[in-house]
């Protein structure tokens, strides 16, 4: 595995990364030569209109997708050269995903949804159940533990998704439009919780198309347009 020598500062580094899709005859440049340095403990928003490549960039950061060009480093390790099984390990251990659609497993209960990522990492039975309980308590979901996703509200589902993302205690939380399917009040609660996680030292990267949300919560905002970074702004937080 290639080590990035001067990556001390950057926890997540995208080095001239491009992702192209072939659509018949033409090539769509979803992300085109993007370089991003995200420091450990940063709260990052990726902004941009539809089709700007923000979700693709997010998938690349989350090692869900492989770049066509360039390198991605996570904590100094080049993850763009890993095989599928190694990538799955990286995702499971280091990254927690939160999706707009919540994406809970409908056939599993709230509790089982939270336990699953730990089971995939081989956390011992006793430990994973204890930990799942702890996380659910923190998210005020313990009384919903035996419910199935379709038996709870959207806000609760997103909290379960956050609980699941926290299961393996990842350093990075990637949230793709986490408030997109929630009413304003519930959405803000979710964002407040992400802030809390950030204060614990976790690196948060979220995709949004709402400048208000980005400005209110993020420390660093990457503005994407046509697959390229248009500008980067820093927000001063109290």
């Amino acid at each position, binding site marked *: 595995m290639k080590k990035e020598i001067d990556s001390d500062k950057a926890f997540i580094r995208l080095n001239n990364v491009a992702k192209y899709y072939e659509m018949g005859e033409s090539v769509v440049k979803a992300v085109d030569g993007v370089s991003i340095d995200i420091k450990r403990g940063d709260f990052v928003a990726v902004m941009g209109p539809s089709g700007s490549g923000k979700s693709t960039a997010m998938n690349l950061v989350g090692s869900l997708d492989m770049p066509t060009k360039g390198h991605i480093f996570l904590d100094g390790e080049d993850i763009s050269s890993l095989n599928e*099984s190694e990538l799955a390990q990286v995702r*499971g251990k280091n990254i927690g995903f939160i*999706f707009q659609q919540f994406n*809970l*497993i409908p*056939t*599993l209960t709230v509790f089982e949804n939270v336990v699953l990522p730990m*089971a*995939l990492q081989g956390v011992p*039975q006793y430990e994973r159940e204890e930990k799942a309980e702890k996380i659910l308590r923190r998210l005020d979901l313990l009384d919903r533990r035996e419910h199935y996703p379709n038996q709870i509200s959207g806000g609760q589902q997103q909290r379960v998704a956050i609980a699941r993302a926290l299961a393996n205690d990842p350093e990075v939380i990637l949230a793709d439009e986490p408030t997109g399917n929630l009413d304003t009040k519930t959405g803000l609660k979710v964002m407040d919780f992400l802030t809390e996680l950030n204060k614990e030292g976790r690196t948060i990267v979220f995709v949004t198309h709402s400048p208000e949300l980005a400005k209110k919560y993020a420390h660093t905002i990457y503005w994407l347009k046509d697959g390229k970074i248009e500008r980067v702004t820093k927000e001063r937080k109290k």
Partner: protein
Amino acid sequence: MISRELINYSLRNIKQRKTRSAFTIISILVGITTIFIFVSFGMGLFNYIEEMSSASSANKVLIQPKGFGGGMDGAFAFSEDEVRVVESTSGVYSATGVYLKNAEIEKSGVKKYVSILGYDPKKPLMSDVFTLNVYTGRELQPGDRGVVLGYNYLLPNKIFSKPYELNDNIILNGRKVKVIGFYASVGNAPDDSQIYVTNDFMEELYSNSSLSYNWIIAKVDTKNIDRVVKDIEKNLRKERGQDQGKEDFFVQSFDDMIESYSTALDIVIWFIVLIALISVFVSAINTANTMITSVLERVKEIGVMKSIGAKDSEIFAIFLFESSFLGFIAGVLGVIFGVALSFLGGKIIESVGYGFLQPAFPAWLFIACIVFATLTGAISGALPSRSASKVNPVDALRYE
């Protein structure tokens, strides 16, 4: 290794798609049940044959007319001299002629035609060959002018509505004859409906017609049985003035009979098993189809699983477990149905007089059927499981 959570996830999915899972199970189950039933009856028959070949019949040779009818058409006959020729062949310990005729029996005005068999009670080769054991009463003895009846005469609504009892009189060819014994069931209707008399009494019963032997049974030296069979053939051919290959009789050792019987049986059983295998093959395709649908329905879930750290091999294991589990359940149910139906079939066959045709339930058959069904599930699920494991997580998460 597949974890408890992943097994739980698989089982929930099977439960979630109850109807489809049930149909998949049924489709495999039908083939497995069929295989179980036929192999079970086949094994039962092989056991029966084995018993026969190890029984006292093994050192006997049967000389019969060629063609159908067992020599009852009257055109075929062995003479007493020919019995002597057989007996004097080297390697033959003793030989006896057997009469076989049709007889008319009557009870309460109802007439029936059955076969009557006459043999020499001094040489009870006959009862050895057909493994006849006395059920009640006694064996025939020289000078007896009574009959020993097959087992079916003891049963109501078999020969006549009312059964016979020991010491009853049976009206045989219009003449009252005493019943001195019954043979235990041999397990096949013709033999169990037979009437047995001594040779002398047979000659008395059929004094108007010319009577000659239909079969010759010989007890031989088993060590040289093939040579003895050839010698009997040669001597008998000479006595009857026939050319080689043009004999109107054939000499068969019990080993030969059992062998030809087992070969025929083998072919029938394997043919049926082959048909059952085709049905299992069709069900495997059906299972594969079910699994493909299941993968397509869960593309997004696969994407989610991958995003939370599931490896390709774990996704493969989840789907493979599901299809194997469906196969396993089909195997267990198939075996249960197989036992029930074989048992029921055995009872029905027994009630119509073929008690020898009974299913056998060896442990390996249970295990083999369940393993085979599980493998069928696993093999048919392998390809869909592979395609599930290769799903691209980004495409999968976008999939609606």
